[in-house]
């Protein structure tokens, strides 16, 4: 699994800082999330000092969920985004889709999931090949998931396809700090602190090493906004969160 073969075998993609063949990435990402699933929530808290909760709240503030809307929450793993959405919008419904079954199983066990179970569904699936007909959802969210997708343009095209006209895409993802000094400080923190912390809390250094590398590899705010436009979305905008450590991107299917 550590051989860096990809180079002369067809198309390659990033897996953290390694180049791997496209066909390998999903399996590698799957390994990471199967490995971290049971400790995922607590690790998110530790890694972001609890700030990921504020980011998800900021996502909801911008999204402004409305009564009766249907949400598709891709890479929704343990349900964080869906729970917030359903709590804010009466009679709304959410489908949580994740490639990793164990993330969904962990999410469904949470108390909020039981409370909201009437309005929640759980599906294992691939963001690049969604198991839904066209024009189905009012809102598509993906929170800390898009950077793990093998071919991001494919996932964005699928998002566009399953949204109904007037539907909205909202992406929460780690991003780049516009200030180089701060980016440097942040890199020091993420590369020196997070993998050892993953070892300490989840007994898994490699998975967290992947997580920080994949964050650094993800395109900056403007580049990603262009990718969203290329998928057909309009009125594409972004907002930085915590100085650009994360960013929210929004786009509409008109």
């Amino acid at each position, binding site marked *: 699994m550590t051989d860096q073969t990809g180079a002369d075998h067809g198309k390659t993609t990033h897996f953290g800082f390694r180049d791997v063949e496209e066909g390998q990435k999903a399996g590698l990402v799957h390994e990471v999330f199967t490995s971290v699933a049971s400790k995922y929530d607590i690790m998110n808290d530790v890694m972001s000092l609890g700030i990921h909760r504020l980011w998800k709240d900021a996502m909801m503030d911008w999204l402004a969920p409305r009564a009766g809307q249907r949400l598709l929450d891709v890479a929704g793993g343990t349900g964080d985004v869906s729970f917030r959405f359903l709590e804010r919008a009466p009679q709304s419904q959410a489908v949580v889709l994740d490639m990793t079954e164990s993330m969904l199983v962990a999410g469904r066990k949470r108390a909020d999931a039981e409370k909201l179970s009437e309005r929640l569904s759980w599906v294992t699936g691939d963001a690049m090949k969604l*198991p839904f007909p066209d024009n189905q959802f009012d809102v598509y969210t993906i929170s800390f998931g898009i950077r793990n997708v093998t071919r991001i343009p494919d996932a964005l095209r699928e998002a566009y396809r399953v949204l109904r006209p007037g539907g909205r895409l909202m992406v929460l993802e780690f991003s780049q700090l516009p200030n180089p000094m701060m980016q440097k400080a942040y890199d020091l923190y993420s590369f020196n602190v997070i993998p050892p912390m993953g070892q300490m809390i989840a007994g898994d250094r490699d998975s967290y090493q992947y997580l920080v590398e994949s964050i650094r590899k993800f395109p900056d705010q403007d580049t990603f906004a262009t990718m969203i436009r290329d998928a057909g979305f309009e009125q594409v905008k972004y907002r930085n969160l915590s100085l650009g450590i994360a960013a929210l991107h929004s786009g509409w299917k008109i």
Partner: protein
Amino acid sequence: MTDDTQSSARSDAPRRNAPAFDRKMLEALVCPHSHAVLSFDAERQELVSKAAHLAYPIRDGIPIMLIDEARRLDD
């Protein structure tokens, strides 16, 4: 930071019955490969795409809509 907190994985909650597949979902789902409608095989707990000759398993009430995990129907 002692290691014994790690043992909290014990499952002391009574084991619930495996949640059933939510029939409402059947209408919402299509085959990710062909986008064709699916039929529900309750006995095998599978969602069957006749068009694509694939049967997607349902485990623990959760449909697994991954082409790699589907059973190929031969006929």
